């Protein structure tokens, strides 16, 4: 099996490649990345004008299986990932039952092997049942293939439990992914606290609710020597805390979501629950800080926090709606349109944030086009313009505030282990 991607702009930050090259794939592995390759008996795809990248990794996805298959399952979620240009996703453990033991982790791995179309890297829970009181069986979770632990969806409110989790995870060099939210400050909040929460009369979630927990977890990472990764970082304050922690040499990384980079709290205006998400869409001031942090190395990666919901969870009173955005199928287009095509982020940096960034945060060996590695590849067409249409999502969750928006720059091919799994937004497996 040979496949040649011909004439595209190859951007492979790990190997310092950025230029027109051909990529040859043999038997599911990268064979060569060089100009003007002309192998024999080879299927050739002309990708001139397109951007060839190492396969994108989304380290923050809710696949909902087991337990919430009406929102998403591993089959639909990995198809959404493929359509959206991702070759690997980390799935969060807030399922029913929670991925807090070897059996559930094994189930997820097995389902992913059977019906997944991209790589699935499970994340285990920090605490049993994500209750925040007793540690989960972390060694077992590692043995079952979990790449990190997190109680995502909820913060670990008790500092002693978080401290123990970090201490314990350090033994396995396992990153701890922290959902930073002080529940006492955020309780009952519906949107970012500020001018627009005042106007719309919705209870605000203050930025400081995130900052306080980010500060706590950074200090705990410092004192334990473990690695903490801040999930869906959304505030100016948290950006500053991470920046200073990195300067100080503390082992901390962080991710931001496309929606926090692209949308402000103003959009809540019509009370469309598709705009409801935790952490909430912030004000322009915070967006500016996040965009700056993307470029100066404070932010390690872009992750979607893909949170699909069934219609009924969003088609209701704003207050009662479930938070979350179905993000896998819009992430690349949003970043291309809102940042790259506006000159706010260069292509190379974007590719890092989707590849080597998450790989390094997770300490996994992915995100490059180094010959010999599995051929996981994402191809982007920077010129194609399409409207976001949730009706054609592969995800069961059609909850996106980007619906109807026109975006320029979309993933046009997703290759997993040498196999083309999606083309032009359509899954072909």
């Amino acid at each position, binding site marked *: 099996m040979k496949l040649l991607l011909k004439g595209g702009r190859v951007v492979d930050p790990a190997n310092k490649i950025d230029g027109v090259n051909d990529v040859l794939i043999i038997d599911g592995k990268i064979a060569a990345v060089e100009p003007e390759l002309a192998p024999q008996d080879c299927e050739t795809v002309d990708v001139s004008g397109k951007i060839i990248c190492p396969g994108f990794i989304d380290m923050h996805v809710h696949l909902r299986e087991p337990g919430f298959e009406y929102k998403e399952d591993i089959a639909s979620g990995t198809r959404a990932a493929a359509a959206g240009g991702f070759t690997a996703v980390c799935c969060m453990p807030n399922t029913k039952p929670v991925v807090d033991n070897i059996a559930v982790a094994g189930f997820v791995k097995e389902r992913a092997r059977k019906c997944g179309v991209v790589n699935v890297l499970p994340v285990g829970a920090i605490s049993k049942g994500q209750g925040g009181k007793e540690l989960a069986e972390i060694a077992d979770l590692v043995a079952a293939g979990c790449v990190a632990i997190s109680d995502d969806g909820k913060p670990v409110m008790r500092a002693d439990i978080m401290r123990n989790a970090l201490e314990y995870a350090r033994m396995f060099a396992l990153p701890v992914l922290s959902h930073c939210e002080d529940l006492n400050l955020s309780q009952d909040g519906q949107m970012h606290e500020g001018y627009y929460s*005042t106007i719309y*009369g919705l209870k605000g979630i203050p930025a400081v609710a995130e900052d306080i927990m980010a500060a706590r977890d950074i200090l705990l990472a410092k004192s334990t020597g473990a690695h903490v990764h801040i999930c869906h970082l959304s505030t100016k304050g948290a950006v500053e805390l991470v920046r200073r922690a990195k300067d100080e040499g503390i082992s901390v990384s962080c991710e931001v979501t496309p929606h926090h980079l692209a949308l402000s709290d103003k959009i809540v205006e019509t009370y469309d629950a598709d705009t409801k998400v935790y952490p909430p869409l912030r004000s322009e001031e915070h967006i500016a800080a996040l965009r700056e942090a993307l470029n100066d190395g404070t932010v390690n990666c872009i992750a979607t926090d893909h949170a699909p919901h069934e219609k009924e969870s969003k*088609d209701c009173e704003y207050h009662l709606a479930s938070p979350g955005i179905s993000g896998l199928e819009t992430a690349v287009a949003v970043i291309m349109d809102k940042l790259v095509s506006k000159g706010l982020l260069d292509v190379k940096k974007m590719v890092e944030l989707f590849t080597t960034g998450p790989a390094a945060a997770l300490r996994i060996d992915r995100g490059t086009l180094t010959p010999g590695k599995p051929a996981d590849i994402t191809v982007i067409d920077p010129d194609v313009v399409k409207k976001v249409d949730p009706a054609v999502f592969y995800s069961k969750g059609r909850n996106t505030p980007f619906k109807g928006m026109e975006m320029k720059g979309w993933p046009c091919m997703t290759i997993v282990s040498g196999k083309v799994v999606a083309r032009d937004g359509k899954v072909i497996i």
Partner: protein
Amino acid sequence: MKLDRRKDLLGLRDLEREEIELILDTAVPMKDIIKRDIKKVPALRGKAMVTVFYEPSTRTRTSFEIAGKYLSADTVNLAVSTSSVQKGESLRDTIKTIEVMGFDLMVMRHSMSGTPHYVARNTKMRVINAGDGANEHPTQALLDMYTIRERKGTLEGLKVAIVGDILHSRVARSNIYGLGKFGCEIRVVGPSTLMPPEVEKLSVKAYYSLEEAFADVDVINVLRIQRERQQSGLFPSLEEYANLYMVTPESLKKAKKDVLVLHPGPMNRGVEISSEIADGSKAVIDEQVTNGVAVRMALLFLMMGGSKSEIVA
């Protein structure tokens, strides 16, 4: 005029000044009707409206109901506590059921901000917001404006102070939006924990002392203080609140001699307003209630009286 082309009235923030003026002007002849022996006109004969209140309220609901009846509309109250809401029916299904019974207009009160907006998007019925969470209570602000205009002759350039729990008050927000369109100087006053973030960006000035806020004011609108705010730690005690923010004859010393005192009711005497003020000559609290009926009649007539084909949703 755009008003009769609007499908819904959800708030004053996006209403134009001319539309507010039309409502207030139309309320004048409506008030005459309330004062007649035969308090009924046939204008809305054959129209049906329903009040759906997901939050207890006697006066607003009764006011809408009698306003509809004075105009000959058939008015029905949906008692939410005894309806299928208790059986876990979704709001969408409840609304659909009401819609297919043939109602032309729904008056909705809900504890959660934005719910009338959600409902309005999902029904052919016209929707009037009778108060949603901490967002807006447009008809309360309209009746406040009517009362002020009737007493002062104009709204233009008046100094109006709004006192109390601004953070959670839909009455405050609708008044700020409405009065703001008439060039009023609006002051909000209350404890800092009950002041919304960035409130001054709404073209109001925030004060923390009654004395300063009331200097030279024409109108004071006193908000009801909810006891549960104290329990959630926003201020220490009702006694301390009353010491600092109760409107009393003493606190009015620097206000204009002919200052009007409004209160949307129901009052907590001895907490946000003293009995001397509530029962005194400056208070127009009973008039507000009468005017509320007139303003709601005006609105119902303007929204339901015309031809359906003209509606632009």
